[in-house]
C-alpha cells in the first residue's frame, strides 16, 4: 500500500486519487501503518536528536536518486537538477544549476569540482568538513544536544513522497531552528527550512521532484568529473594557521560554538586576503574574516542579510572584521565583541 507512494508524480500540484484515498484514511491509520512497516514503537517513539541527525546523514549514502531542487533565500530563488549515486564507500553527486549562471558541481566523497562553462574555468577543492559526520555526533565535542531539542511533528507529502516532519529548535536565542521533512523510508531530507525566533522561514531548500533508484551511472559521473578539457582548472590553496599564531583570541566564547578551522587563503595577485576563523555549534557556522584595515578598500561598515546568512562588518582597531553566519545578528555581535588582539 505505502509502496505506491514511490510512484513518481511529476505534477506535484494535482493530487492523485491514491493520495486522496490516503488522506481519507486519516492520520491515525497512517501512523499505525507506518508503525507496522517500520517495526518501531508507538507514534511518539522519539529518536534522540543525535539519532535523527545520523539518520538524515546516512540516508543519502544508501539510495541513488535524481531530482529537482529549489532554494529560496530571502527574495532570491534558484533551482538545480541533482543526480546522486552511491556504491559501497563512494558517493557521487552532480548538481546542474537551472537558474542564474550555469554551473555544474560534481562531488565524489570529499572531492568537489565546479565547472563554469561561461568562463571555461573549473575549481577543485577538498571539503574536509563533509566527512566529519556522523562520527562527530558520537564524540564528546558534539554539543548539539545541549543547545538544540528535537520535536516530531507530523507527516506530510513532499515531491510525491511521504515524510516525517521534525523540528530542531534551539534552546537559546543565539541560533536558528530547522524544520525538516525526512522521507519516511530512507530518512532523506527532501525539504528543509531555517526558522528565526518567531518561526518565520528565512530559507528553504526543497525537492520539487524526486525519483529514487534512478539509473545514475557512477562511471559516467566519474568521467564527467575528470573531463576538464578546455577548462582552466584552479585549485584554491590555503595556509592553515591558528588564531593564536595570527595574534587573536576569543576573550568571551559564544556558548555552543567551537573553533572548526583557521586559515589564510593564498592569493596570487599579491593582495593580502583575510584570515578566516570558522566556528560551528554543529548545525550553524560562523566565519570571522580579519584583515588589516585599508581605508581605500574598507569603508562600508554595517550589517547585511542574505536569506538566513547575516553579516556584520566593522573596524576593529587597526583591522577590519567581517563576521558572517546562519545565526541572528545578536550572535554575530557577541562574536565581534568577544574577539581581541593579543599582540
Amino acid at each position, binding site marked *: 500500500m505505502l509502496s505506491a507512494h514511490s510512484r513518481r508524480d511529476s505534477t506535484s500540484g494535482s493530487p492523485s486519487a491514491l493520495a486522496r484515498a490516503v488522506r481519507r484514511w486519516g492520520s491515525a491509520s497512517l501512523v499505525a501503518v507506518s508503525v507496522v512497516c517500520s517495526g518501531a514503537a508507538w507514534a511518539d517513539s522519539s529518536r534522540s536528536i543525535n539519532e535523527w541527525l545520523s539518520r538524515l546523514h546516512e540516508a543519502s549514502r544508501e539510495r541513488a536518486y*535524481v531530482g529537482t531542487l529549489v532554494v529560496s533565500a*530571502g*527574495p532570491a530563488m534558484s533551482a538545480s537538477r541533482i543526480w546522486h549515486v552511491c556504491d559501497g564507500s563512494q558517493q557521487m553527486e552532480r548538481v546542474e544549476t537551472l537558474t*542564474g549562471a550555469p554551473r555544474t558541481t560534481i562531488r565524489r566523497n570529499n572531492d568537489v569540482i565546479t565547472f563554469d562553462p561561461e568562463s571555461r574555468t573549473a575549481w577543485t577543492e577538498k571539503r574536509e568538513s563533509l566527512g566529519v559526520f556522523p562520527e562527530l555526533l558520537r564524540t564528546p565535542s558534539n554539543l548539539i544536544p545541549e543547545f538544540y531539542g528535537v520535536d516530531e511533528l507530523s507527516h506530510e507529502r513532499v515531491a510525491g513522497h511521504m515524510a516525517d516532519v521534525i523540528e530542531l529548535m534551539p534552546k537559546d536565542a543565539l541560533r536558528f531552528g530547522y524544520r525538516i521533512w525526512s522521507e519516511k523510508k530512507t530518512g532523506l531530507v527532501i525539504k528543509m527550512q531555517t526558522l528565526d525566533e518567531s518561526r518565520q*522561514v528565512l530559507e528553504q531548500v526543497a525537492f*520539487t521532484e524526486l525519483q529514487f533508484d534512478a539509473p545514475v551511472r557512477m562511471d559516467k559521473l566519474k568521467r564527467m568529473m575528470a573531463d576538464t578539457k578546455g577548462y582552466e582548472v584552479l585549485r584554491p590553496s590555503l595556509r592553515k594557521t591558528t588564531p593564536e599564531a595570527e595574534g587573536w583570541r576569543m576573550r568571551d566564547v559564544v556558548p555552543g560554538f567551537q573553533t572548526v578551522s583557521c586559515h589564510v587563503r593564498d592569493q596570487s595577485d599579491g593582495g593580502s586576503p583575510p584570515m578566516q576563523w570558522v566556528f*560551528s555549534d554543529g548545525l550553524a557556522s560562523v566565519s570571522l574574516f580579519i584583515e588589516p584595515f585599508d*581605508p581605500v578598500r574598507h569603508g562600508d561598515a554595517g550589517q*547585511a542579510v542574505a536569506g538566513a546568512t547575516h553579516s556584520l562588518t566593522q573596524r576593529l582597531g587597526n583591522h577590519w572584521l567581517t563576521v558572517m553566519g546562519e545565526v541572528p545578528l545578536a550572535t554575530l555581535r557577541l562574536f565581534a565583541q568577544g574577539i581581541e588582539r593579543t599582540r
Partner: protein
Amino acid sequence: MNAISQDQGRTPLPVEPSDTAAAQRMSLWMDDEADAVELDAVLGALDADQELALTWASYHVIGESLRQELPERLGARPAVFLARVHERLAAEAGAPAVEMAAPAAVRVQPIVRGRAANDALFRWKMAAGVASLAAVMAVAWGVLGSMPSGPGAGGQMAAAPVGNVVAVSEAVPQTAAPSTVVIETPQGTIVRDARLMRLLAEHRQYGMSALQMPAGFLRNATHDGAPSR
C-alpha cells in the same frame, strides 16, 4: 570562446545530426509538450550528452534574448561585469552610486527575470514563477541598519520581511568602495557587494554542519554559484 555567447537566437543548435531525435524531445520538453516517457529519455540523454546540455543552455539564452536580458548576462566573468557596470556609473558625472531619491541616478538594467514573453509555451514546471535576481552570483544582500559616516541617504531600512527585497541604506562613495555595485530593480535597490559575496562563498566552503549532507551541500551548489577565486 564560448559558442553560446555568440548565439543571438538564430544560430543552429549545436547538435550532431544523429542526435536530432534527442533534440526534438528536448524541444517538446521546453514547450511543455513532452510526456513522462519522453521526459525520462531527455533527462537520461542530458546526463550523457554534453552537446544536448549545450542545446538546453541555448534554449535558455534564446528565452533571455526574447526578454531582452541577454546583453547584461552574456559571457562576462563576474568581476568583469561588475567592473563594466562600475565604469558606467563612474562615467555618469561622478555622481554617488546610489541615491534612493535621485531620479538622475544611473539605472542599471534590472536583472530580475520577469514573465517570459512566451510564457504560455515556455513554461518550465519546476521553475514556473521563479524570479532569479542573480546576474553575477545568485545571492542578493539586503543592507540593514546604518553607518555613522557616508554621504547620501544613510540610516534607513530595517531588516527585510521574508520575501521582500530591501533597499540600500547609504550611498557608496565611488573611490572608497570600488567593489560595491548598486542595482535598481522594480522591487527596490539591492546592494551587490563583490567583496561580501566572495567572503560568503568562502564561508560556505569551510562551514561545518550536521545538516550539510545532503541538504546544505546541495543548497550551496545550487544557490551560490562559483566558489571564490
